[in-house]
């Protein structure tokens, strides 16, 4: 039963005694995603013209527009978003950019809705207004 002990496996095992583990000590060591990684999208409200293209094209209806044209504001539902980048692609004025943030989980669904307000009404339009920035 223990006849054909194969040495390839034994050598590999012993080699691993010296190797550094391949796993990361998350959350203390974090892995930086590559450039171009599709994380949570953010809206640049100064550029947005309220053309509704991103709202129409979103496959999972994760974008909600309030108001029309230049006063339009957005509510982005992170828990429905697919991170497909279709809104970033379709936006004629490049107002939407996909950040490299992937730690977007939260216990409370209300926190998963991110509002993007216009400049004069509220100060924090560029950055996210929810807790998990």
């Amino acid at each position, binding site marked *: *039963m*223990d006849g054909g002990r194969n040495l390839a496996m034994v050598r590999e095992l012993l080699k*691993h*005694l010296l*190797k550094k*583990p*391949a*796993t990361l*000590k998350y959350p203390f060591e974090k892995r930086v995603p590559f450039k171009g990684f599709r994380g949570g999208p953010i809206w640049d409200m100064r550029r947005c013209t309220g053309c509704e293209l991103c709202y129409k094209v979103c496959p999972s209806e994760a974008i909600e527009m309030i108001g029309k044209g230049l006063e339009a504001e957005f509510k982005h539902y992170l828990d429905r978003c697919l991170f497909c980048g279709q809104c970033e692609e379709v936006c004629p004025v490049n107002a939407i950019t996909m950040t490299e943030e992937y730690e977007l989980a939260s216990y409370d669904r209300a926190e998963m809705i991110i509002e993007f307000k216009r400049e004069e009404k509220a100060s924090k339009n560029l950055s996210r207004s929810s807790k998990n920035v």
Partner: protein
Amino acid sequence: MVPEGIMALIQILLFPGFLFLIALAFFHEWVDRKLLAKLQNRYGPLYTGPAGLLQPFADFIKLLSKEDITPKAADKFMFSCAPLFMLSFPLLALFLIPVTGLTASISFEGDLIFLMFLFTLIAITIFIAGWSSVSRFSTVGGVRAAFQMLGYEIPMTLVMVGPAIAARTLSISQIVGWQTHNAAWFIWLQPIGFAIFVLCLLAELEFIPFDIPEAETEIVAGWFTEFSGRKLALIRLGKDVELVLAASLITSLFLGGPNSSLPILATGFFLLKTTLAVVLFTTLRALFARFRIDQMIAGAWKYLIPLAILQMVLIQLGFGRW
């Protein structure tokens, strides 16, 4: 209270007794998990205590606080006794092993036979645990444990008797004494016996090549699928103590046990050798895939038993005697 009575109490409860053995059980589980992780290129337990040392203890406490469910159809009495037996038999067996010197807490002529009897009892407890928790998975697991016992029981007994014949005694303490006096460990004298003994202990501990009774990918967790909460905690502790028992049995029968009478030195040697034995188990565990039950039994009867008999013949011819 006569001081000598207190000494006996301390011996049983504290030093070479329960507390020490359970702490050793946790330590050996930690060694096993850390080494297996290292061999598999990952970290293993990290955050509880220094380098995850307290992880097994933390698991034990966590399980104690979990809800303890008994299946409605289960045989209540047997279902709750199985974990108790599972823990007490290995602990009792460990008292037969010399730890702090050349003689164990309990040592009488024929304690080797008593130890073999305890081994069989452990296997039967596993079967009862599987049988009494009336779920398909655990029944199949229990039956497989019984089959596996048929496989490894005979070669293990044959091989355990080897050192006894060479040392012309049936008491473990005297076998250890014999090895210390003649400064000859049985691992050199009876290498075949040592190899078979290690394989049989792997089967008894249900480690990887032989973890058939609890094959998680086939029958969930095999015989202890239905246990939870306190009962599961006791079973896992029982399995850890069983690991200590297997390691200390190898140390005393084949590696010369604590080969000095001074308590500190003896315990030091004992700890060193048992940990080495656990390292051996873990390396084997990382090396193999799981056998099927019919392959295991066929292998045991086709290879292990003839080799064990060959070892017996060699001893009779005087090779293993010195």
